[in-house]
C-alpha cells in the first residue's frame, strides 16, 4: 500500500459529546488518526467504544443536538470537515465519502425501488439524466455481483435477501466513485457465509476502484483478513494503532491483548474455555482523568489511576496509550 503518501483524511483531537438528560456523555475523546489513499483502516472495539460515533461525527451524520463536536479538525482533501457547512458536507456525503451501515434489512427505504435509491445519488451528485442514471445503476448492481441487474432495479428491498441488500448498499455507497468508503460493521448482521462473500466483494472492489476504506467492526477475525492498519478503540479513545501484522504479533495494550485472547482458535491446543474480559465498558460522564480501561485491566499500575496515558510510538507506525510495558512487565519508560 502507498506508504508515506499524503493522507486523504487526517483527523486530529476529535472530541464528541452527547448532551443527555443525565448530563454529558463523552463519546469520543481526542481521537486522532489518518487514512491514506487506497488504504484499508480497521477500527476495532466493543459496542459503545465510540467507533461509529467517530466516523459519523466527521461527516455530519450525528443529530445535533444531542451530539456536539467540542473540538478537533478533520482534513479531507484540504478541507476541514468539522468547519464545513451543511451544504458542503451534503455535497461530499455520498459523492466523495460513501457509507455502508450495519443492518441491510433496515438501511434501505422499504417503499422505494432499489433502482430509485441507487439512482438518487447519481442524479444528485453527478447530474445524470434519468436514463444515464439507470444505465449506471445497472452497471453498479452488476459490479457488486447482483445477477440480472437491469431487471432487478425495479424490485423493492424486501425482494432481496440480506446479503443481496448489503450488496445494494455497497453499490449505493460506491455510486459516485468515492475516495473514501466508511463501512460501519457491514457484515455484523449477516450470517457467516454471506459475511465472507461481502468481505471478498469489498476486497475485490478495492482492487478495482482503489478507494480508501475505514472498516468498523468488533470482529478481529475479519480485520486480520482485510486491513492494512488497525486502530483499537476503548472508552472513546484510541488505545492502540498498528499495522495489522504487528498488532496481531506484538500487541502492546492490555485491552488489545485481551481482545486477541477472546478469539477462538482452530489451530493449536483447545483451550478449556474462551477467555472473556470481565466487566463493562465505561460510560464517560466527564473527560477521563484516568485510563478508562483500568477497572478491567489485569496489569493496572498505580499511575493508571492518576492520569490518562497519552499515545506513544513504540515503533514507527505503532502507537499505544498505556503505561504498562508487556516486555518488562512493569511501567513503560519512553
Amino acid at each position: 500500500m502507498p506508504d508515506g503518501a499524503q493522507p486523504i483524511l487526517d483527523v486530529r483531537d476529535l472530541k464528541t459529546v452527547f448532551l443527555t438528560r443525565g448530563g454529558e456523555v463523552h463519546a469520543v475523546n481526542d481521537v486522532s488518526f489518518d487514512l491514506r489513499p487506497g488504504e484499508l483502516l480497521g477500527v476495532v472495539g466493543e459496542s459503545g467504544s465510540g467507533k461509529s460515533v467517530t466516523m459519523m461525527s466527521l461527516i455530519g451524520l450525528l443529530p445535533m443536538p444531542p451530539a456536539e463536536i467540542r473540538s478537533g479538525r478533520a482534513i479531507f482533501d484540504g478541507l476541514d470537515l468539522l468547519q464545513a457547512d451543511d451544504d458542503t458536507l451534503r455535497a461530499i456525503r455520498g459523492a466523495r465519502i460513501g457509507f455502508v451501515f450495519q443492518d441491510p434489512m433496515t438501511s434501505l427505504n422499504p417503499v422505494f425501488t432499489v433502482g430509485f435509491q441507487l439512482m438518487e445519488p447519481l442524479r444528485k451528485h453527478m447530474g445524470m439524466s434519468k436514463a444515464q442514471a439507470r444505465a449506471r445503476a445497472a452497471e453498479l448492481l452488476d459490479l457488486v455481483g447482483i445477477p440480472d441487474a437491469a431487471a432487478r432495479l425495479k424490485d423493492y428491498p424486501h425482494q432481496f435477501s440480506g446479503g443481496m441488500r448489503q450488496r445494494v448498499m455497497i453499490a449505493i455507497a460506491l455510486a459516485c466513485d468515492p475516495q473514501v468508503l466508511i463501512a460501519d460493521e457491514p457484515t455484523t448482521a449477516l450470517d457467516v457465509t454471506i459475511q465472507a462473500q461481502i468481505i471478498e466483494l469489498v476486497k475485490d472492489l478495492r482492487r478495482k476502484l482503489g478507494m480508501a476504506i475505514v472498516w468498523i467492526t468488533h470482529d478481529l477475525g475479519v480485520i486480520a483478513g482485510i486491513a492494512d492498519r488497525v486502530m483499537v478503540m476503548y472508552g472513546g479513545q484510541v488505545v492502540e494503532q498498528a499495522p495489522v501484522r504487528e498488532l496481531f504479533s506484538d500487541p502492546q495494550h492490555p485491552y488489545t491483548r485481551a481482545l486477541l485472547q477472546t478469539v477462538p482458535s482452530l489451530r493449536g491446543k483447545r483451550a478449556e474455555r474462551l477467555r472473556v474480559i470481565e466487566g463493562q465498558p465505561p460510560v464517560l460522564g466527564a473527560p477521563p482523568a484516568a485510563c478508562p480501561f483500568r477497572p478491567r485491566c489485569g496489569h493496572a499500575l498505580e499511575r493508571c489511576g492518576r492520569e490518562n496515558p497519552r499515545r506513544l510510538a513504540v515503533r514507527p507506525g505503532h502507537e499505544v496509550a498505556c503505561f504498562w510495558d508487556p516486555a518488562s512487565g512493569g511501567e513503560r519508560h519512553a
Partner: protein
Amino acid sequence: MLNYTIRRLFMAVPTLIFISIVIFLLLELAPGDPMAQVPLTVPAEVKQKMREALGLGEPAPIRYWKWLTQIFWVEPLHLFDSLFGTNFSDGYQRAISWQTRSPIFDIIAQRIPQTLWVVGVAYVVAIVIAIPVGVYSAYRQYSLFDNVGTFVTMIGFSVPPFFSGVLVIVIFSVWLGWFPSIYDTTLRVTDWDSFLAQLRQMVMPVMVLALQITSQISRFMRASMLDNLNLDYVRTARAKGVSEPTVILVHVLRNSMIPVATVIALGIPSIFGGAIITEQVFKVNGIGQLLIGSIEANDLPMVQTLTFIFAVLIVLFNLIADIIYGILDPRIRYE
C-alpha cells in the same frame, strides 16, 4: 390486486346481510310507537289501523324481507328509471318514511348536499392542515411550534363540538357579528354574492369540525413521522447526500403516510354519517340531523336505512383503506 378486490367485495355481502339483520332486530327490540306523536284525540282502533297500514301487523321476518327488497331491488330500479326514463319500477312500493310519508331515498338525496358541503369541506380542510402540521411538529419535536401544536390539538381533541360550536357562535355571531349563526339551506348559489354568503355560513361549522378532525389526523401524522425519523433508512438517505427536504418529504413522508392514509380513509364514512352534534348546533339540516329527527319520531324505516347506508360505507372504505395500504406499501401483497 384486482382479484383481491373482487374477492373482498364478495366477502362483504354476507357481512352486510348480517349487519342488516342486526340493525333490523335492534330497532325491532327498541321500545317506541310510530303513532306516539299522533294526537290523543285519535281513537285507539284508528291508530291500530294506521299501524297496520304501515305494515306493522305483519311478522318481523316478512317486514325484514320487504325492507331488504325495497332497498336492494326497488330503489335501484327506481334510480335506473329516473336516470334513463324507463318504467321498470312501476307497481313496486318504494321504501317510505313513516314520519313524512315520502320515499326515504328522496329525502336522503335532499339532505346529502348540505352534509357533504359542510362536513366534507371540513374534512378536506382538516387533512390539508393536519399533514403539514404533523410533519413539521415531528421534524422539530419539542420545538415551540410542536408544543403549541400539541396544546391546540389537545384542546381540539377534548373540547366537544357542542361546546366549541356554541362558543364560536357567541364569539363570531353574537359579539363580532361576522357570520350567521344558522345555516340557511334554502340559499342558492347563483352569483358571487350568494357564493360569499354560502362561504360565510359555512365558516363556523367547518371551523368546529375541522378543529376536531385536524387534531386527530395531525397527532397520527406526528406519531407516524416520529416512528420513521430515527430509522436506519433515513440515515442512509442522509449519507447519500440527499437534501433535507427530500429526506423528509420523500423518504420519510411516504413511509409515514401508510398508517395515516388508512386513518383518513376510515374516517370518510363519518362524513356521510354527518357530524350529528355540529349539524344540530348550526341547524344544518344534513344527514346527521335527519337521523336524530327520525330516531325521535320512531321513523323505523328511515333509521334502519340510514344506519345500513353507514354500515355499507364503513365496509366499503375499509376495503378502500386496505387497497391504499397495498399501493403505498410494496411489502403488502394482496394475492
